[in-house]
């Protein structure tokens, strides 16, 4: 891949570019530690890291990438684990944390507009000082950027009342893969200081035409093309989010002996008390929380915790509902101190990682009533693994179930093979009507199911129109050819070559063919047979190598996952 560091430096500022191997390595990671074998299908690192500080330099960077056919991948703070911001074919990483201003706030419109590199923590601090809060923010709010969560979608703190994050987005600004700047939905800005106005008008006009030829609506109606699609259609640079009044926040927590009772109470709380936030922690999670050791009664219990966000009077009524429901279903309501503890823990779901010290994550969205059964099956299927399960409840009857499979990445072979458990949980949850929690890179093969058939078709059409050269976050969501490693190419070649040799030895020994060969037999044929076989073997080997070169990610995973499963069974035996 050809790129000119100086030219990129001219575009985004020399201090905002780095090509040092260690910086490229660091920015190529997210929270998941991938096994070495993963780098046989995705490139291990970006070639260049950039930190543009304004929209115009980002636009020029995208144009540069487009001219040179270089992949370009947006990144927030790398706090997700689904590979949405990691490299697949090297290229340029656009770290957006340098664009983090709060641009507009209007309490009457209950909205705030920010640049997407701002962290949720900083945005929360800002709105809370003004007496407001955010309807939804991620559990990784202390470090995650607004852009990262909006680009990937998902449930967060507040989803129990307000649904997923994408419902909180009023409008966005994005830079398309062809450098056009567009605004979708209702992006609120101070129009007097809007330097991009002309460029946006031009961009929106162009986008409107593309949308109408694709049979879609106006830019005001099609925000969803860019939210939740991992920056594959464009890089989101500004977002207008809803805000809500910061009423009286009241955390609560209840403990149970089993998941069935917990789910029963959770259903009552969701329907009657309408909490702001509701999370569950299972026995295998609470038993690993070191801070719970001194609270013997909670360690190893099932905990339902959350918060009410309402007027003091309504909260009082709702607390009564929670107490009654919990007591009726064999649970115990925990005191304020413990409730506050669990509320503060909402930002730290990864606390249990020390028990690994590595983790293999697995997460699904599943119907709330199926959770007890899913958990039982998960425990049975992963009985030989150390696991910790927790989840978050949404207002639409779904629950995110997060299974932290604790492992040790220093044990290379078992850690690599152990990754099949993540996929095993995914297929198990699907049997119960579950969906992948996120698409990112690794769940691309479930994208059609995740987005819905029609929506996914629309996305595909628009991807072709907006990004015909496929430079914008390639392979994510839509799949595509992978960057194959040398070892895999060698394996492809060897499979072809050795397979041919074995076939060359076996086939002549098939009874009918034996007679045929005897009929044609001559010393000359025998002499010529082996060199020909080697030549054919080499050719088939090359074909095998070629197949690995043109293999897509989904094909690679379709072959790799069963292989990991077989190896796991062999290892156990």
């Amino acid at each position, binding site marked *: 891949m050809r790129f000119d560091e100086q030219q990129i430096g001219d575009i985004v500022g020399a201090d905002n570019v780095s090509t040092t191997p260690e910086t490229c*390595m660091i920015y190529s990671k997210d929270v998941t530690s991938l096994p070495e074998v993963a780098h046989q299908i995705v490139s291990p690192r970006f070639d260049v890291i950039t930190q543009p500080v304004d929209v115009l330099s980002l636009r020029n960077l995208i144009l540069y990438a487009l001219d040179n056919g270089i992949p370009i991948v947006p990144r927030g703070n790398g706090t997700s684990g689904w590979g949405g911001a990691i490299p697949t074919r090297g290229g340029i990483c656009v770290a957006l944390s340098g664009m983090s201003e709060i641009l507009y706030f209007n309490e009457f419109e209950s909205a705030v507009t920010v640049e997407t590199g701002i962290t949720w923590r900083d945005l929360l601090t800002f709105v809370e000082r003004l007496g407001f809060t955010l309807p939804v923010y991620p559990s990784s709010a*202390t470090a995650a950027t607004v852009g990262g969560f909006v680009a990937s979608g998902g449930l967060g703190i507040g989803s129990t009342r307000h649904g997923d994050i994408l419902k909180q987005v009023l409008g966005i600004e994005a830079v398309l893969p062809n450098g056009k700047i567009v605004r979708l939905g209702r992006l609120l800005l101070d129009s007097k200081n809007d330097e991009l106005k002309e460029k946006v008008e031009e961009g929106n006009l162009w986008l409107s035409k593309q949308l109408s030829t694709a049979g879609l609506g106006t830019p005001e109606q099609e925000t969803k093309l860019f939210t939740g699609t991992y920056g594959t259609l464009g890089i989101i640079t500004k977002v207008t989010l809803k805000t809500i009044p910061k009423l009286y926040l009241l955390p609560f927590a209840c403990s149970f002996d089993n998941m069935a009772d917990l789910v029963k109470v959770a259903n009552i709380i969701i329907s009657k008390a309408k909490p702001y936030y509701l999370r569950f922690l299972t026995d295998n999670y609470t038993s690993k929380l070191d801070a719970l050791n001194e609270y013997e009664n909670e360690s190893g219990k099932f905990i339902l915790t959350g918060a009410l966000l309402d007027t003091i009077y309504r909260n009082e009524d709702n607390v009564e509902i929670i107490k009654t429901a919990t007591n009726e279903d064999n649970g115990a309501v925990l005191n304020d101190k413990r409730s506050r503890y669990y509320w503060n823990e909402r930002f730290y779901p*990864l606390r249990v990682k020390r028990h690994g010290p590595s983790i293999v994550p697995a997460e699904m969205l599943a119907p709330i009533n199926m959770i007890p059964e899913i958990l039982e099956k998960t425990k049975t299927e992963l009985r030989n693994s150390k696991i910790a399960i927790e989840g978050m409840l949404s207002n639409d009857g779904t629950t995110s179930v997060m299974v932290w499979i604790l492992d040790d990445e220093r044990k290379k072979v078992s850690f690599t093979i152990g990754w099949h458990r993540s996929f095993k949980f995914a297929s198990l949850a699907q049997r119960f009507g579950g969906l992948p929690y996120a698409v990112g890179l690794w769940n691309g093969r479930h994208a059609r199911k995740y987005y819905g058939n029609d929506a996914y078709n629309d996305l595909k059409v628009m991807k072709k129109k907006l990004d015909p050269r496929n430079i914008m976050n390639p392979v994510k969501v839509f799949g595509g050819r992978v960057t194959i490693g040398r070892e895999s190419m060698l394996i492809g070649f060897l499979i072809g070559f050795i397979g041919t040799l074995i076939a060359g030895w076996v086939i002549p020994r098939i009874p009918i063919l034996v007679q045929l060969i005897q009929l044609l037999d001559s010393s000359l044929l025998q002499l010529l047979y082996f060199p020909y076989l080697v030549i054919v073997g080499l050719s088939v080997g090359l074909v095998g190598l070629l197949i690995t070169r043109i293999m897509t990610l989904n094909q690679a995973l379709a072959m790799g996952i069963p292989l990991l499963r077989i190896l796991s069974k062999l290892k156990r035996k």
Partner: protein
Amino acid sequence: MTKLDFLERYGQEDEPYVCASCGNCTLVCPVFHELKWESYGPRGKLHVVKSILEGKSEFGKDFAHKIFLCNLCEHCTSVCTTGISLDRFWEVVRAEVRERGFLPAPAQFVLKSLKERGDIMWMGSADRLLWMEDIEEIVKGRILKKAKVAYFLGCNVSLKSQLHDVAKSMVKIMDYAGVDFTLLGDKEVCCGAPLGWAGNLKDINEMAEKNLEIIRELGVETIVFSCPSCILTWSEYSEYLKENQNIELLTASQFISRLIRERRLSFEEQPMITPTFHDPCISARVLKATEEPREIMDYIPGVYHVEMNPSRQNTRCCGSHGLLDVVDPILASKIAEVRLRDVTVTPATRIVTECPRCILAFDLAKFTTNYDILVQDITQLVASSLAPKDEGGAKDQ
């Protein structure tokens, strides 16, 4: 795989793998805040350590230099999701930097000075008496006197003339309250903290012991410090203190607050002072001594303290801790300027703190930013607010 024995030696071999990569540490890191690249932040450095362990990166000079671009301010440790003691981890890595001969020249100087002179700035034991000028009457007979309370000044306060007033104020307060206290005078040596910062962990106990041996002989039960890092170092590295819990270590504000509660200090009305308290990293995040200084300020009539944001456990580092002020003074100064900017948005007319390094850092930042504000230690504020002596409190029996 590169063998990094030193991690195992200090029981730190799991830590790079325990890291959840959540990024909390990076976003609070003052060095990352200035330099903007993750390779300078804790998460990035842990990734590099992992990479070295896996034989994919080199433990070279560049990495060694980055390890020293750190304030050891405990902020990353305090927000770590998985509870990694990151500051201890960085000290262990600094020890390896030293072993490999990559120690930055200023850190080498500090180690040499500690070994040959017993302090961090190549002075000498005799210079530890200079601060007593003008208060000979109060300190007369106090040096190496048997007493229950000892005042441990630390290198900066005893040796830097601009900080001499901190020590003078502390002894004035003790004298006012009638505390029977002792001073180590020229027998005091560095507490040992800079040894850890410069990668010599094994000699810290020896350095602490040099002081503690004298302190024990004097029958001391309480040691009052002007520098929170001295307390942290002794609590972590002194074998004697780990085994014997009979000596309490207090910050100046913890001790003064106790004196106030015992009604041994009385103050006169001040002419409307509006200070803001800068929580030093170690006293706020490790010693958890955030309320005592505020209680003291609230107690002095006419003092109306205002809060900076961030404060208490979330306080921002002044930039001069962990040897950053000698390894990269410009970076350290920039970090101090950021903290000074937090002050500028408050109505405060002076900064009060309780760490000599913070005072030095802000004095420099005042100069580089041309922002004129009085910087004081809490002891200076207290000493200057005391009512005339005849109204003082009761004496120790």
